């Protein structure tokens, strides 16, 4: 059933118990994503190490299961990478969902493959990733 493909165990799990949930104070930078269709909102907080790697990352979401799980999985995937690497993963993940790109190297993020059959949920699956980009490029706050 398509639906269970969308809401896989791991998605339900991450939506109920999001990893890296919470707020980071400055000097962490923050970035937000907003979906006007439903009022969903995600804020991502990033703290980089001296070498420019993502040392700590967290997020807060008022969002659906797909969005919450995608953001939660995202934090696990990009932690410890550089800004360039993180944005490369973002691009790779979005290509995977929208252009039938390869899932190689996406790890647990593959669980979001079901979104391909529910294009109206694409915004949900990528909202946190846009917030990540904003946080990486953003101001402390």
């Amino acid at each position: 059933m398509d639906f269970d493909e969308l809401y896989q165990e791991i998605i339900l799990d991450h939506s109920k118990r999001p990893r890296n949930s919470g707020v980071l104070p400055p000097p962490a930078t923050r970035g937000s994503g907003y979906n006007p269709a439903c009022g969903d909102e995600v804020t991502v907080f990033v703290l980089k190490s001296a070498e420019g790697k993502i040392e700590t990352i967290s997020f807060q979401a008022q969002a659906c299961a797909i969005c919450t799980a995608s953001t939660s999985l995202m934090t696990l995937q990009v932690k410890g990478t550089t800004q360039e690497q993180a944005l490369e993963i973002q691009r790779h993940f979005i290509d995977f969902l929208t252009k039938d790109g390869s899932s190689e190297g996406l790890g647990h993020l593959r669980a979001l493959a079901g979104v391909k059959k529910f294009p109206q949920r694409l915004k949900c699956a990528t909202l946190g990733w846009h917030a990540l980009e904003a946080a990486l490029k953003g101001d402390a706050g």
Partner: protein
Amino acid sequence: MTVPSLAERFRADFPILDQTVNGHPLVYLDNAASTQRPTSVINELSRYYRHDHANVHRGLHALSTRATALYENARQRVATFLNAEDPESIVFTRGTTESINLVASSWAGNELKPGDGILLTQMEHHANLIPWQIVARRVGARLYFLTVTGDEGEIDWSQLDTIFTDNPIRIVALTHISNSLGRINPVAEVCRTAHKHGAVTLIDAAQSAGHMPLDVRAIDCDFLAFSGHKCCGPTGIGILYGRKSLLEKMEPYQTGGEMIVSVTFEGAEWKPPPHRFEAGTPHIAGAIGLATALDYLDQVGRNSIQENDHHFGNIAATRLREIPDLRVFGPLDERAGIVSFQLGKIHAHDLVAFADQHGVALRGGHHCNQPLVRKLGLHATARASFYLYNTESELDRLVAVLHSAAKYFG
């Protein structure tokens, strides 16, 4: 409780309902967003295009004469539907949104002075909020809001008179039935109070026009707006009723063909209402299809539809409240057939997607009531809205799907 089911007699008139979605018979409970159309309306659109179409007004040939007569008869039909004195008080627009924009621009934009007040409620649809924000900013007027309190969405109407006494309110614009709370507002009383204080009134009848008898003379409002697509009619057509004495003083909204008496390269002179407000080729088929929809509603009986709505609204609210952890918004009784709710911690998106997977069409989101939903401490709610063709067994399926969802996401 034993209301004779309208669905038994009329459901077969709606061909779209006879389909399966994700392997289940469709249960369409998104009627507050848009209703479906009976065969008579669909057929009338085809008939019109196959036999009578031409541009209206300027034509002297047979097709154009026929199209013009159908279009102007549709205007008369709407006047009768609203018990308006005069077809000239009926303006065809694209929908409720355009009707309200027209009044905000052509009435408020010219009449309001800096410091004047516009009174709204906190339960207005964005269509009856943002146009007023815009015009208020433009002319320096100020917005006032009637406070909506609690999950039941109550408004304390007893303060109304004082608000008018204490503030320079020039217009009050409010919804007849709230599209998120299912609450029915006492519009006739509001108009009475407003007029006592010399204020103008606008009723957003988007959720009431297809659901109950509407009488602009009994309500005694100055403006009233509704959309065809929410009352069995075609998309792209809506109505602005306006008191003739007000319409006559208003400047045009859009300009172009069909709304002028005379044009030179330098300037133009306007026609009287309603044509002053209908620049360009109108949605002829839409007006004609809307008239057919109104015939249909009167054939079903607007009193019956209202009873049916109350019945479904009340039992749905009652049965949903019995589901553990389910929070219902809106009044406890006397409600329209609209029930918004929050089930545990399940996000409305997930709930709606789950319901759809079982063939049940709900809406989830802020329902264009973002400030109100925020006030409830939420980002989104789910909403089930009933219409004349819904059955008790469809309500059973809604309840069942909510129980399953609680388990699935729980």
